[in-house]
């Protein structure tokens, strides 16, 4: 029987089942008893989002008032009544120079988000124009054997998102390349396990910041002759080292706890060691390995921000740090935008890994 791929199946597989409920709502497919589920799955989340925004708005407003009153009071104490009145008028007028700097309200964050998108459009246009302008010159330079001129303007917010994703995936694949083979060897051999046990126990809880410093010490020396920017290598290696532990532990656990029935099958069929590992042990531990990889990816995304910030590697982490240092009137709002973007991307990465994990999983009972 051929299985058709429908929207419902895809969304359910991705763990986004509520999307199909939405579709049913608009196509009028909902039955009476479905309304209860609809209420729980759609109305309740939407209501809680609204409640969250409301609380945020109120909280931001009261913080704003606290800050404003403090400024007026300060002006009154230091410079007298006239300055205080001026300050109050200035704040009320919405002038940028005297706005209280505090938690931004949802609307400010939304405005910042749009200004970041506009900024991206501007920079992209600028880049395209630059490319066009230098196209002929670059052709000539390449023909002469020189390096082409590249755009060196500041990156937009969207560019930084992609740069962060690049770093996190580079780190993730580094973790995968180290942790999966190592985990398999540790899982297969009790000797290796006891050899590596102290290593895992001691290095697993080390903080991302310290990993960054360690990687920095090593990579700095290794790349001592190179004039290239090493911040990308440092940050992705540090991300990989921080996040690989979950995969390492899960892989070795999966490999060392293969079901006895499968091992018996391997023995009865007289599989060689190589065959046994690749045909029986590895497939049966794939679900656990992918559970580990899922944790690794989410840890990688989480530590990425801190590491980019320390490594001065362009990306969301650096963006957040620069905005904080910047202290412009919309910096706080931009930080909150970055926070949501980080959260949403983290959520999507998690879903991505979950779908892969579901695809490779099987139940032991499947074969009994």
């Amino acid at each position, binding site marked *: 029987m051929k299985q058709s791929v429908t929207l419902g199946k895809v969304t359910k597989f991705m763990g986004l089942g509520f999307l199909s409920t939405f579709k049913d709502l608009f196509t009028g497919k909902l039955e009476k008893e479905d309304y209860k589920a609809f209420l729980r799955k759609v109305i309740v989340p939407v209501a809680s989002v609204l409640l969250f925004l409301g609380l945020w708005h109120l909280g931001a407003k009261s913080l704003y008032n606290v800050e404003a009153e403090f400024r007026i009071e300060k002006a009154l104490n230091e410079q007298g009544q006239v300055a205080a009145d001026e300050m109050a008028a200035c704040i009320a007028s919405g002038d940028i120079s005297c706005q209280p700097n505090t938690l931004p309200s949802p609307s400010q964050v939304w405005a910042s988000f749009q200004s970041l998108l506009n900024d991206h459009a501007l920079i992209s246009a600028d880049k395209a124009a630059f490319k066009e302008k230098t196209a002929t010159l670059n052709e000539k330079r390449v023909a002469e054997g020189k390096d082409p001129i590249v755009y060196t303007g500041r990156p937009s917010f969207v560019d930084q998102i992609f740069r962060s994703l690049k770093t996190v995936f580079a780190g993730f694949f580094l973790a995968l390349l180290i942790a999966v083979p190592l985990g398999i060897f540790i899982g297969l051999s009790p000797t290796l396990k006891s050899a590596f*046990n102290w290593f*895992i*126990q001691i290095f*697993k809880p080390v903080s991302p910041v310290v990993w960054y410093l360690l990687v920095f010490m090593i990579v700095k020396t290794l790349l001592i002759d190179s004039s290239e920017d090493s911040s990308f290598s440092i940050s992705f290696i540090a991300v990989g080292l921080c996040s690989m532990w979950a995969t390492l*532990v899960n892989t070795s*656990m999966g490999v*060392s*706890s293969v079901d006895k*029935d*499968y091992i*018996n*099958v391997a*023995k*009865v*069929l*007289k*599989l060689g060691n190589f*065959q046994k590992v690749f*045909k*029986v042990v590895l*497939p*049966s531990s*794939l679900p656990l390995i992918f559970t580990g990889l899922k944790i690794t990816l989410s840890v990688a995304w989480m530590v990425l921000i801190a590491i980019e910030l320390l490594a001065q590697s362009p990306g969301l982490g650096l963006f957040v740090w620069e905005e904080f240092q910047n202290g412009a009137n919309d910096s706080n709002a931009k930080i909150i935008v970055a926070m949501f973007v980080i959260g949403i991307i983290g959520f999507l990465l998690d879903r991505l890994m979950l779908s892969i994990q579901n695809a490779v999983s*099987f*139940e*032991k009972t*499947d*074969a*009994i």
Partner: protein
Amino acid sequence: MAYLELKNIYKTYGTDENATEVLSNINLSIEEGEFVAIVGFTGSGKTTLVNLINGLLEPTKGEVLFKGKPVEGTSHERGVIFQNYSLLPWLTVEQNVLMAVKEAFPKREKAVYKRKAAYYIDMVGLTPAINKLPKELSGGMRQRVAVARALSMKPDMIIMDEPLGALDALTRGTLQDQILNIWGKDKRTALLITNDVDEGIYMADRIIPLRPGPNATLGPEFKIDIERPRDKTEMNDNPNYKKTRNAIIEYLMDIGEERKSQVSEEFVLPDLAPKDFVNQFR
């Protein structure tokens, strides 16, 4: 000389005060081409006995001889059909069988493997399901895959460990006939472990009861003098069948009674805990 011979087998699990003697003083000999059934209660040590014969376990004391040579480890000469099928859930029916074929006949062409696998899958009537995963099959179909996998290695002897235990009565009947058919074709030696007396009588030449463990040992054998091919309905009227069946059941019941009267003895459970792997890394 017997084809398979067990001489004074003892099997103990654990050491010192935790030691439990599961099998004691097992003597058995099976001739070539014979179909022998061992009937016993659940938990009487049947699976241990099977694993000793197929080479997954070693006896604590005594000798297992196959074709006159001591059994050391598993061998393709002895095909095993496990109680819980033990198919690899990530492989299709064909891949499960192919895996065995490739191991048993190394260095052939791919087409040869495919043809062999297809032949044995056809033998158990699963050709339409050849590309399905085990989870898409019913229990009976899964066990047929396991049968095909065991047969595809062309074993000289088939060892079956309660192969039909988890199946419903109807599927059981069909599979019994299929196994008998296959066995009848080239008269391989077969050993069936079962807890169903009727199944044993229907399929085997000899039935040997296993007295329940600990210290399980084999009881007196019962010969089944019913001509093959046997017919289930006709068999019910066969006086020989009734006599043998009653004798075996009576014997097993007596053991059961004996066992009940001994229950007053207290069992000290060994102090076991699951291997704590995760915590070692914490």
